[in-house]
């Protein structure tokens, strides 16, 4: 939809999935390039470890590639891929026995866009602190926040991602935001 609004012909995810199912590797490669960033952020949100998140995303795409024929298109490929990644991340954590780990080990390199260096430093510090606080929230809350803010997912899509109702997704997001605001004060 968004693609068609831009006027220029950009092949849709659905078309790429169809082509990939027919054996076109380049089509799947394009899907990887379009959606690996979202998948990575989901994995990072759950695992809180960059190295684990990278492994998770890799495994998630391998599984998605093998299961592509079973993708029914009920949701967008992006949402499906993020859900596959979330499941893979949880499975990985279970295997590693890290479910209850509470330490904050990872905040990715900061993306700073403020033009003024002094301001940039302040924004960077605040952002790093906010991300660190985000990592202390329960998984569903931080995943809901990350999916809503970083990826722009709707609450319906977030519900699919965290395995809950749309209402629960909304509650997780707003509870998380409220808690973050308290922590940041």
């Amino acid at each position, binding site marked *: 939809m968004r693609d068609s609004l831009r006027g220029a012909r950009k092949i849709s995810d659905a078309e790429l999935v169809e082509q990939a199912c027919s054996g076109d590797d380049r089509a799947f490669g394009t899907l990887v390039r379009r959606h690996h960033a979202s998948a990575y952020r989901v994995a990072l949100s759950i695992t809180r470890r960059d190295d684990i998140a990278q492994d998770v*995303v890799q495994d998630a795409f391998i599984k998605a590639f*093998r299961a592509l024929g079973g993708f029914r298109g009920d949701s967008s490929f992006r949402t499906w891929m993020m859900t596959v990644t979330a499941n893979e991340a949880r499975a990985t954590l279970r295997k590693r026995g890290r479910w209850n780990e509470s330490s904050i080990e990872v905040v990715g390199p900061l993306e700073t866009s403020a033009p003024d260096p002094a301001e940039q430093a302040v924004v960077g510090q605040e952002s790093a602190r906010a991300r660190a606080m985000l990592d202390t929230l329960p998984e569903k809350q931080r995943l809901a926040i990350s999916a809503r*803010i970083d990826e722009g997912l709707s609450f319906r899509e977030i519900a699919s991602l965290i395995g809950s109702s749309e209402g629960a997704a909304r509650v997780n997001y707003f509870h998380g*935001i409220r808690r973050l605001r308290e922590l940041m004060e």
Partner: protein
Amino acid sequence: MNEIDCAKVRDCLPDFASGRIENHRSVTIESHLLSCEDCQSELELIQILRAASPVVPVLLADQIENAVFSSRRPWNRSPWGLSAAALLALAVGVGLSRDRPEVIQDVVYDFGVDPEQGELWLTEDSFLAGDLWIEGLSNETLMKLLEELEGEGAE
């Protein structure tokens, strides 16, 4: 009234912060933000979080592509492996249909595969099982295997 407005505005704040919102709604939100400190504060938090959005490793996409395509099933990667597996399964199947278990055992046990374990038969998704051990064989061994199979078939 302001509470209702706040709820609607907060729903949209992430989209507003990232510019994923229509112009007319954007104006409405901006207008609300001017008079609502609470929503302003929430928007600031969202902007702070956005500024620290994790940066994706530069080479991750390449790594994923490499992993995906190198992990594909062997029959996709190697037409030779596929044809060998197909020929082997066909030949063994023919052997079975002729009720000649001794032929099957000769072939199977030479390469450490037990047909009783179902390693040589079609799987549910119609792909050939047993391909993995064939994939690991050298061309020389495969040729020898095929010669044996052809020999058995000619008898």
